């Protein structure tokens, strides 16, 4: 069993279909919806945590892709220009999910993308504008 977060993007024609239902019923995946922006007839974006057998999750992702829904692991959609980071800590102040933390020995920034819930507060909080999150 594995647990992994994915960002799903629905094209306009798919926004009103119950794809998450099929993930549960057909692939035995436990889903946790962490963030959702659905505009019927326009587009939709979801942050899902998928919990299930590895091959079931792979099949579920393939099922979504076959229905024109992009489904990518969260870490592929979150970018931090680490080489420019000055380790000031401003982003850790707003990261209540505990994804961004300061290492207590080195006082360098640590980014555990698996903990990110795409609240996007780090984007404006970074004084150097080093974060980019591709959710929509």
């Amino acid at each position: 069993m594995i647990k992994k977060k994915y960002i799903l993007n629905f094209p306009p024609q798919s926004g009103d279909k119950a794809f998450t239902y099929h993930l549960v019923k057909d692939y035995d995946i436990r889903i946790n919806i962490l963030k959702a922006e659905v505009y019927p007839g326009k587009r939709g974006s979801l942050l899902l945590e998928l919990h299930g057998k590895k091959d079931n999750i792979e099949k579920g992702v393939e099922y979504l892709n076959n229905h024109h829904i992009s489904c990518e692991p969260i870490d592929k959609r979150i970018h931090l220009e680490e080489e420019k980071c000055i380790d000031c800590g401003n982003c850790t102040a707003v990261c209540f999910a505990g994804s961004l933390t300061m290492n207590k020995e080195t006082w360098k920034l640590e980014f555990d993308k698996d903990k990110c819930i795409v609240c996007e507060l780090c984007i404006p909080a970074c004084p150097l504008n080093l974060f980019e999150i591709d959710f929509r």
Partner: protein
Amino acid sequence: MAIIKSYEEINQKLKSGEAVILTAEEVSKMALTASPEEIAEKVDVVTTATFGAMCSSGAIINFGHANPPIRMEKIRLNGVPCYEGLAAVDSYIGAAACNPDNPKYGGAHVIQDLLDGKDIELEAWAKGTDCYPRKHIRTKININTVNEFTLFNPRNAYQNYNVAVNTTKKMIHTYMGTLLPNLRNATYSTSGELSPLLNDPEFKTIGLGTRIFLGGTQGFVVWPGTQFHTTKPKNELGVPVTNAATIAVMGNLKEMSSEYLHAAYLDKYGVSLFVGIGIPIPILDVEMAKRVSINNSQIETSVLDYGTVGTPKLGQVTYEELQSGSIKIGNKNIRTAPVASLAKARKIANELKSCLQKGDFEISKPVQMFPKNTSLNGLKETEADND
């Protein structure tokens, strides 16, 4: 016998490579087992450092004269307004000034872009005079075309600073970063036991003319910083428990690096400049050894509510607690976060240590000590202005 070392003796040891130099963090550890007398005997210099956003920063620039010449009366660098009330081609660009069309780009960014060797658009206007007939100029400048390019920061390196929290139900945006509602975070900005002015709280060795590490080169303390306050409340060790004294610093930007000087935009607040400062503290006597021995558990600061008018004090905590990741205010545990880089401050303290060890950095006796017993005036509003 009392240990007393002179600046000359310490500089001699630095030149011959015999001096013992520790960072302020290293000496704090040493002090757990060594007495101030032993530290005074063994250690010659302690390096301190800070790397935080310091709005009261800026640069003096002389652009050089064009032909025909212009007496610049309105100046923009990449759209950022610069001060025009000096001689014809002299200007001062404040770190916090911003381009009205792009408020996230400001004086700090212009300074950093120049440091990084980029071209900057200079546009200036004038009425035209007999000796300066030109009325307008638009050209490109860079770090090599300007004459003087000097960092002059009227207030840096605050001796301690408050912890910021927010008791309201709304998120607020401040120079202390984004403060989540209902006390869900607390931010602090001082490097604690490594912080320069906390290691010499009585200014026995830091004064006018003190040679310092500034932005990657050697600079100087040139004056007490603005809002220099020596009579704020202190703990039993004589260390202020809130923001107190400051320093004004100067240095040659042409020798600096954006590794130690970095532009910042603080969301819904404005532009600022991260400034890297390191100050060597000579251990002249046992008293100075005692001062630099201070550790994070002995340095306290005040927790202020930035969400409430008048920023009321909610508590007092140590830097040991702040660096642990959580502080307790009343019955509530609050997650803490720094807004200044301790990693960079450590890098500066070690770089300064290395320069001292190589004999590349001479410690200097202040030519004049800072004033004592200073306090601040508020800004009074006269009756007429309140109409």
